[in-house]
């Protein structure tokens, strides 16, 4: 059995203002097997989406398939050639300014030499509305992931809510 922890926090950011539009985790070590991104927080304007990009890639190199419930019906959809993958809801009602949304991305073999896949969970219930989702995501790039940017998709005039937290964990297989 390898020495050292299996599940380690690499970096965490808690936003303490209402003017932050993105957070970047850079210089991610290649010393883990998988990564987990955990986001919990509100948004500055109702309906905003929190998303992720890798290595600063803003090209149409992302895609995802979504399975979701909105409290009434189950549905599924797919997006191809996108410029990001979702961390929180981008389909049903988006984020809330008062009630935190919770999202995770499990990024497998992030330092390997194949295209990168990630499994996502999105949990956003607001006592009368909201959504639960599971996503599978693809970044078509064989480079190792060395940075992850978590941001508001509507642009730089839109912000995270005060107190939102994003954390990257590293997971070692051995």
């Amino acid at each position, binding site marked *: 059995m390898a020495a050292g*922890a*299996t*599940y*380690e*926090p690499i970096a*965490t950011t808690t936003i303490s203002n209402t003017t932050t539009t993105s957070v970047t985790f850079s210089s991610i070590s290649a010393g883990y097997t998988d990564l987990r991104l*955990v986001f*919990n927080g*509100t948004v500055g304007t109702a309906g905003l989406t929190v998303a992720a990009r890798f290595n600063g890639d803003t090209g149409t190199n992302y895609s995802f398939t979504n*399975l*979701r*419930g*909105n*409290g*009434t*019906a*189950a549905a599924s959809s797919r997006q191809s050639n996108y410029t990001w993958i979702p961390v929180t809801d981008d389909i049903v009602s988006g984020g809330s300014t*008062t*009630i*935190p*949304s*919770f999202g*995770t991305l499990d990024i497998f073999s992030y330092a390997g030499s194949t295209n990168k896949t990630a499994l996502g*969970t*999105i*949990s*956003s*219930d*607001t*006592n*009368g509305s*909201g*959504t*639960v*989702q*599971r996503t599978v995501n693809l970044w078509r790039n064989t480079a190792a992931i060395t940075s992850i940017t978590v941001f508001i998709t509507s642009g730089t005039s839109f912000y995270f809510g005060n*107190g939102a*937290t994003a*954390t990257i*964990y590293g997971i070692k297989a051995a």
Partner: protein
Amino acid sequence: MANTYTLISSNVLTGSAASVTFSSIPSTYTDLVLRYSGRTDRTGIPGYLKMTFNGTSSVYSDTGLNGNGATASSNRNTALADFQIYYMHDSDGATASTFGSAEIYIPNYAGSSYKPVSAFGVGENNATTAYIGTDASLFSATAAITSIALAEVQAGRLWLAGSSFYLYGIKNA
């Protein structure tokens, strides 16, 4: 570096129990993860999880996404006295000696905002019908979570011997 993912408490049932409770949960972690392998004596299938925090009532809601091997559906509960999360474990009508599995993630459980909860469970069954549920839940209270109680939604039903429950704390630094 201190341990990131730590077992806080566990409970493996050697007999039936109406409720399993984790109490005196320290506030020193960032998030909580509760994992269990469970079976109740609820009639039929599947099991429905009744969960409360801090013994509080009237502040629970959820949005669920469920499947039974034939259809997918979504449900919603609002302003309940407890969480009622569908399809989280096995019950009396499932294949014998079979226990469902569930994971419940509670971020920022000790913070001063409302608490979102993410749940995922299965009630496996060697038949044409088995159940899977995933849930976005909300605890609309600002108090830190210091206790978690788990039971079957159907009144009078019990967790069965062999059900096991594990509460972990995760630190983000």
